[in-house]
């Protein structure tokens, strides 16, 4: 091939000269990871749905299991189904919004803007984890563990589905572990930003990559919320 042909080829979309997907290595690899993580979560949620269908008659009602606000001082509110978890959902949505704003400020090379939006993102992440701590504690006190289910959570046929606890704690726990990881990554990001690391580097791509991860955690919660609380 003549040098000119090779040059023409390189300028074509898949010729090797230009990045055809306009995505950096790091961002592409973050997507690879997120897609593989999606498969893990879908496997969990589909197995949950299968076991739930097998035990359809003894499966507890969500409004029965999640009927109170498990915060100290809120013990007298007994019949408020899904209120607390809706609050948790909003906390996660808002933290996703502040994260995407941090990414946008990063792409404008605005260091102060990135810090301004990373701080609430970390805060909301911690609030979510605390909420999960209180909810878990409340359920464990009621007698729900990985292997046991109290009779107050019996299903329509008067029996309990002892699988509920193991699925609930393992899936929300795995999601919570992702949130914890995200909070740690965001704190790392905040420190790096404050030290001016990304200004020296010349771009804020790291904010974008960790942002993708954080939105993924929000995305998974949409389905955890659907599977355990709404359905």
């Amino acid at each position, binding site marked *: 091939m003549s040098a000119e042909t090779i040059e023409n080829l390189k300028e074509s979309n898949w010729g090797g000269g230009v990045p055809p997907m306009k995505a950096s290595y790091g961002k592409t690899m973050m997507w690879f990871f997120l897609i593989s993580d999606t*498969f893990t979560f879908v496997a969990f949620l589909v*197995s949950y749905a299968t076991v739930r269908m097998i035990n359809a008659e003894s499966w507890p009602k969500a409004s029965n299991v999640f009927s109170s606000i498990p915060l100290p001082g809120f013990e007298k509110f007994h019949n408020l189904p899904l209120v607390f978890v809706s609050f948790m959902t909003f906390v996660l949505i808002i933290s996703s919004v502040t994260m995407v704003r941090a990414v*946008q400020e990063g792409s404008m090379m605005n260091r102060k803007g990135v810090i301004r939006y990373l701080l609430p993102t970390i805060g909301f992440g911690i609030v979510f984890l605390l909420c999960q701590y209180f909810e878990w504690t409340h359920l464990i006190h009621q007698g729900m563990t990985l292997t046991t289910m109290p009779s107050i959570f019996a299903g329509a046929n008067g029996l309990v589905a002892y699988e509920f606890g193991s699925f609930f704690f393992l899936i929300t726990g795995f999601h919570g572990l992702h949130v914890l990881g995200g909070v740690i990554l965001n704190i790392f990001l905040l420190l790096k930003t404050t030290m001016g690391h990304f200004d020296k580097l010349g771009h804020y791509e790291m904010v*974008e990559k960790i942002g993708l991860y954080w*939105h*993924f955690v929000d995305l998974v919660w949409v*389905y955890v919320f659907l599977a355990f609380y*709404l359905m």
Partner: protein
Amino acid sequence: MGHHHNETYPKNDNHLTMTVEEYKHHKTDVWKTTLFLSAVTIIEVLVAIYYEKNLIPAGWSVGLLRIFLIVASLVKAVYIMAVFMHVKHEKRAFILCITIPFTLFIWMIISFLYEGNDWNGRNKTRFGEAPHPSVIKQHGGIESHH
């Protein structure tokens, strides 16, 4: 500066990866999406409370409401990916690389739910409405319908 690390980043000479117009447009897009996601979540919660408390209006089916919840969650997922995760501004080839693997879930969900439903039916045929023997064994204290 920065170019030797990564050739695709940043896109233009003043190291900004977005133009000011793009930035403004994306910003409004994010606020609109936030409102939309919040509204869908509120409707979902109301629907869930209504059918769990058996307050469904006459003629409405629980199955239909559940399908609504699933579709609403899918719509939320699409918006989070498209706007928050920036997917709608990616190259077409990149969008396809991300979304095509998800089509594997279609058969996974159909087959596993079929399996679960079938198993439920078989248990009923074998044991009637009584619990599975393994349940009694592990939870001796629980009342059974014998």
